[in-house]
């Protein structure tokens, strides 16, 4: 296990480098002149040239990348011009909020998706299965940004059970209870599609395992049906479910963009949308880089978990 982990951690290095190259290239290839964007179209050619030199824009692409990544290692992601603040500080501030939201949604989709999938498989073609299959279909077809609006309208505006926006109450807010109250609606909204996907996969995975010879062996031993399903079948199905939860982590991190916009959640997704509108390229760059790097880490965890769960995986 240890040797595997070391190897797997080393494998993330090229991936992280690749991500940095892609992010750098995307931003470097943006049409238009960043110097012009900063100084405005009335700037004199001399000023533009000086700023370009300051920003290193006159150097070749490879040299610019090396400078950029060198700064990155020193924690310097540049300065956001729209916020007039170091990008790293802003991005890290925002990331915590996104992490809270995404983790809660991931927890919800894992718990409810797996339960729904198992029930559906065990009661295949029964009423519970039919209802759950329908719910799953509705779930994966729902535009989350619309669902967020509808839930906010109903549970926040009409019923007043939960706050409609923000992470903490503006007056006298703070503390875990306040946070949880604000978290309920966004987390549920964000988890709906992922729950559907997890439930679907759990169902088919459980059904597939149920046909395996070793499940018949368990029955031949006289193991009771509950134990057959929750121990023999689920243990094997879980190995297939874990990577799907990993993929959902990616969808949830990305989908948070909508939810943060709908619920005014002060996360990195909402920051990105704002930064794209104001063309604050350095801020976009920093945000994308951080979330992508974090996702690499999530995938590492998923692989490690799978390795721990399945003794057959050697490499």
């Amino acid at each position, binding site marked *: 296990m240890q040797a595997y982990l070391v190897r797997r951690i080393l494998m993330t290095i090229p991936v992280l480098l690749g991500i940095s190259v892609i992010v750098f290239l995307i931003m470097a290839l943006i049409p238009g002149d960043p110097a012009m964007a900063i100084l405005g179209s009335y700037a004199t050619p001399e000023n533009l040239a000086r700023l370009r030199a300051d920003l290193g824009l006159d150097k070749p692409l490879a040299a610019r990348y090396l400078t950029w990544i060198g700064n990155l290692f020193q924690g310097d992601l540049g300065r956001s011009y729209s916020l007039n603040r170091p990008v790293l500080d802003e991005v890290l501030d925002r990331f915590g909020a996104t992490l809270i939201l995404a983790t809660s949604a991931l927890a919800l989709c894992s718990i409810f998706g797996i339960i729904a999938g198992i029930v559906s498989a065990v009661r295949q073609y029964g009423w519970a299965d039919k209802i759950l299959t329908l719910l799953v279909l509705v779930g994966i077809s729902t*535009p989350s940004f619309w669902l967020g609006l509808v839930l906010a309208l109903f549970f926040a505006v009409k019923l007043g059970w939960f706050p409609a926006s923000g992470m903490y109450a503006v007056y006298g807010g703070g503390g875990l209870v306040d946070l949880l109250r604000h978290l309920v609606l966004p987390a549920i909204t964000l988890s709906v599609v992922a729950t559907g996907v997890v439930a679907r996969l759990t169902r088919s995975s459980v059904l597939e395992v149920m046909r395996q010879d070793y499940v018949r062996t368990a029955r031949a031993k006289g193991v009771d049906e509950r134990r057959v399903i929750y121990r023999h079948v689920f243990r094997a199905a879980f190995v297939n479910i874990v990577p799907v939860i990993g993929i959902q982590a990616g*969808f949830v991190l990305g989908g948070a963009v*909508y939810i943060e916009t709908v619920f005014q959640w002060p996360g990195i997704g909402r920051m990105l949308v704002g930064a794209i509108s104001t063309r604050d390229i350095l801020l976009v760059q920093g945000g994308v880089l951080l979330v992508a790097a974090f996702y690499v880490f999530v995938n590492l965890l998923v692989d490690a978990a799978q390795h721990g769960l399945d003794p057959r995986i050697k490499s």
Partner: protein
Amino acid sequence: MIGATWRRWTVGANGRPALVALFVRNRLAAFGLAIVATFVVLALATPILPLPDPDLTDLANRLKPPLSVDAPLGTDHLGRDMLARLMWGTRVSLAVGLVATLVAALVGSTIGIVAGYRGGRVDNVMMRGIDMLMAFPYMLLALAIVAVLGPGLLNALFAIAIVNIPFFARNVRGVTLGIAAQEFVAAGRMSGLGPVRILYSELLPNVMPVIVITMSTTVGWMILETAGLSFLGLGAQPPQADLGSMLGDGRKLIIVAPHVATIPGLVIFVLVMGINLFGDGIRDVLDPRLRSGALTRPSAATAVARDRRLPEPAPDRADTVLDEAVLDVRGLRTGFHIGGEIYRAVEDVDFVVHAGECLGIVGESGSGKSVTALSLARLVATPPGRIDGGRILFRGTDLVDAPLDELRAVRGEDIAYVFQDPQTTLHPLFPIGEQLAEAIRVHHDLPAAAARARAISLLDKVGIANPSERARAYPHQLSGGMRQRVGIAMALANRPELIIADEPTTALDVTIQAQVLRLLDDLRREEGSALLFITHDFGVVSTICDRVLVMYAGRIVEAGATDALLTDPRHPYTRRLIDCVPRLGDAAQAIDAIPGLPPAANRLPRGCAFAERCDRRTAACEVDEIPLRPIGGARAVRCLHPVAADTR
């Protein structure tokens, strides 16, 4: 002409139900298709429908609620007619989603085909690139691309298409790799076909289903995500509007005029749901694994027909000494019910297993011997299996109608199984010691440590060295022979009265076979268990079985003591079968296979099932069911013209 084309679509080649038939059966998919078709028709018809101008502002009539006089869905904050805007917006969303899908499919499939077909370096470079794209969270990459290209509907389309390329590339590459390695492609290459010809004639037809399946799963997302980008203000820019941007505009008015935001969202939802329903239907049709019904849940015990045919009471059988019988099987019938047809695997099988004896069941594959074995503890998977008749009497109780709890108490405790392939019959994720201990603890209230100690002693007994260490090993860490020793240990765990071994040595090396066979026989003798041994191998039968039953097409055709039956077979089938076994040192022996094939299990003849292949057949053989008749000396044969004793 038209009739023929139509038939090709409805009936389909090789009797498989075709697309249309499947859609008719799959009502949800048909419903989804209806939704999608409605959307497409409405989108196409929008320009010619008598709708108000969707961009005409009328501030006097702003935010009118739905069901107003001249605005059926109300008006928005600029007084524009919601219905008209919705229709035009749907047109845009649908078009953008479809075009994005086509772009992603085209680019992604091309990458997949080239990578899969060329292989090597090209494949490596392309797939590393795809991996890099997948290293980003899905929507995040789309956002980054929009950040570069700038907000706008076309840019949103490209962004969404790009992030979906990996799904196509990966799926298509996987299939292409498989096909490119196949012979017909190599043959094409050898006969001088250019890569383009091979692509069109060989690859594309095979890859197409995968592309269609991937499209059917991704088109819904792509419509959702492009609408999402518009919702964020990064897609459609005013005055142009799609469903997403309408929703985004309406968001600020959600409290004052909820209809402005909720109605476009509802339309997206219905459209995407229609697409997903339809897509699931397509997948069911195109994915062979789903079509074969591999994903149905088997029940805990084989189902029993409600009107199960019961055998006549008190059969007067020559070989029956009831007090000694461990198991008394009477008139057992097991069938597989698949798509309205019944495949009769086991037909009226009667036999008795006496305490401590070894009874063999011999037959070709498909003769019903394994299904018979599995039926005894009702382990045949339902669906499609079902017990249609008979009794399985174990210590006087009929296992066929025993409640599940009672059946489970017998399984593994009194009747234990050794299965054919220990590679698949041991759980891959539990250590073998744990699996053994479980077999004990299911039936005996024993502390974990005691069960573990017993498991280790069992491993020792079946000849596994370092048993306490090996108990922690997983099945994949053992050799095939070792695994089957574990299988035998598991069957012996509770000293059962009967062990049913279903071809236990077939999957093993010839050199290991004899060892494992000897082990099984020695141990079951030690424990005093009876053994029901299923095999196709007369050599094995002669080594360990006291008595033998020969099965053909689901029925017992001959029964008797091993020596007598082997030296003096009476049924023409048994005789041919024994003649097929090569004898050592008899170089002149001509091995002639039995001509013809056994009858299909869903079309069994009324009379003798072997008649068609038999050279002793007369007209009488095919008229009526032929009984299994005792012929003295505890032997029985199901034949009107048995081979006379010693005519060989």
